[in-house]
């Protein structure tokens, strides 16, 4: 059975139909990429999964439990962490406070302290800047902070929204290396990306979204060579 199963998901913004019945699944240990152009519904899909938006119809099932109507703060407890788009960190709090807030749903003090060290190991630059106010970090560092914060809730699935957005090519590679190492630690990753090439290069499987529908799916290694994908998203 799939770890996360999305079935016939429909979401409306007023009269606009953002998702017109999409279905996909995420298995344990996989990296899944959702790719597509602007307005295809990628972010909407993630927001619906993590409870920030309510679905009109369809279902989201996490390990056999229906979480379609579960509020966002409870979903975090159930093991899904969200790295929101555009580096939504807490600008006026310190780096350490940001990381600590990631563990908000946890009560085990020792475990939290241990995991903070783990985050510092994964992102050494954050440990150099732990007392700094987060708003003063560079774009790449803010992205790392958002990722580190998400890992603090000890998620089994990390949902990432455009982690490479607005970053320099070197930093993009660095971020993708980190996603790779997050997967190696046994965390499942659901990745939304506009940088289709990068996303397909690290994903196991991928789904291509177009105006609220899944138009193509399959192994990432196959999709990267698919003619239509190449033309539409890889610019070749």
């Amino acid at each position, binding site marked *: 059975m799939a770890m996360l199963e999305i079935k016939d998901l429909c979401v409306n913004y007023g009269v606009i139909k953002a998702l017109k019945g999409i279905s996909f699944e995420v298995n344990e240990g996989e990296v899944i990429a959702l790719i597509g152009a602007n307005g295809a519904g990628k972010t909407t899909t993630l927001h619906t999964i993590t409870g920030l938006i309510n679905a009109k119809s369809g279902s989201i099932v996490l390990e056999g439990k229906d979480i379609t109507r579960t509020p966002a*703060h409870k*979903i975090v*407890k159930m093991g899904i*962490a969200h790295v929101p788009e555009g580096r*939504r*960190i807490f600008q006026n*709090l310190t780096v350490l406070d940001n990381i600590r*807030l990631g563990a*908000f749903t946890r009560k085990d003090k020792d475990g939290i302290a241990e995991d903070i060290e783990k985050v510092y190991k994964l992102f050494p630059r954050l440990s150099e800047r732990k007392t700094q106010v987060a708003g003063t970090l560079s774009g790449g560092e803010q992205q790392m902070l958002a990722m580190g914060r998400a890992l603090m*809730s000890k998620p089994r699935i990390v949902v990432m929204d455009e982690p490479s957005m607005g970053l320099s090519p070197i930093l993009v590679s660095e971020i993708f290396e980190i996603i790779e190492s997050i997967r190696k630690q046994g965390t499942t990753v659901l990745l939304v990306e506009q940088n289709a090439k990068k996303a397909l290069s690290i994903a196991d499987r991928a789904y291509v979204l177009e105006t609220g529908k899944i138009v193509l799916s399959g192994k990432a290694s196959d999709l990267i060579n698919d003619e239509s994908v190449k033309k539409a998203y890889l610019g070749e």
Partner: protein
Amino acid sequence: MKKKISPMTRKSFVTYGLLVLAFIAVEILLNTGNISSMMKGLLVPICVYSILAVSLNLTVGILGELSLGQAGFMCIGAYSSAIFSNMVKETITEPMIRFPLAILVGGIFAAIFGLLIGIPVLRLRGDYLAIVTLAFGEIIKNVFAALYIGYDSAGLHISLKSQGDLKLAADGKMVINGALGISGTPNDSTFEIAAVILLITVIIAYNFVNSRTGRAVMSIRDNRIAAESVGLNITKYKLITFGLTAFLAGIAGVLYSHNFYSLQASKFDYNMSILVLVFVVLGGIGSIRGSIIAASVLTLLPELLRSVNKYRMLMYAIVLIVMMICTSNATIRGFFVRNAQKFISLFKKNKAQPEAVKEGE
């Protein structure tokens, strides 16, 4: 636990220290008879406005939402505690027992209303929240202004029409007399009690900001979506802050109502809410110490400007505008800070042991 003192802890202790120093200074002046009776009358209001400013700063600075209903919560605290004190003033004659009870009554009633109002209101944000809280404040004020409550041997009588409508028995007593409000409230508020409560308020505020809950609230202010995505129940934390704010505003209301013999609801209009907002903005949004200083200075200012009599309110407005410009403009503020530092360093060089610098009040 930890030996190292965090900057926040140091900041809060400096504020506590300043408050205690100011209190001692005022006490000395009081006991040596160096304060005019007009000034004496302002001591409790200064504490009241400081508490209000600190409480509103929790909503505006920490929660990041603009609430203009502060006077409404203050009104609830003032009325509920005044009713309580009037009812028990014959049975409990000792003010040191009666007044703390009144404070609790006022604070708790205001907090309950804060939560009740908060549930629908906190769904709104920004300007909408400001307007709706303003409206709630006005509703509270007007309801109290139209309320007639009296009691006699048959029990409590409530009417929204007139005093006669209550049909009180011969032994009856009025508690709230409509727009005339409540009179006969025991004058239990003293400067000492008000100062102690202000100190407690400040301690509560600093501890709230530095707590797990406080961090959660600030994270909601910084980024709502991110806060939700780390698993915060946003409604819950907003309500906690709103309730705490209302509680503190209610307590300020208790001090206010027990400072005067009679109390009218018309005092708690939106001018009061705006005034408190002015204290918060002038003192610096998020700065608890600043709120207290701004509230004190602006409460004292009309009194200090008495010498220019006719132009008093004009001067008040000009001083307010100049202060706002000076504190909001980084260049001008920098100019003042630099010169203040120069001045202090000169002072230190000239005199090895400077005399204690007197605080503002």
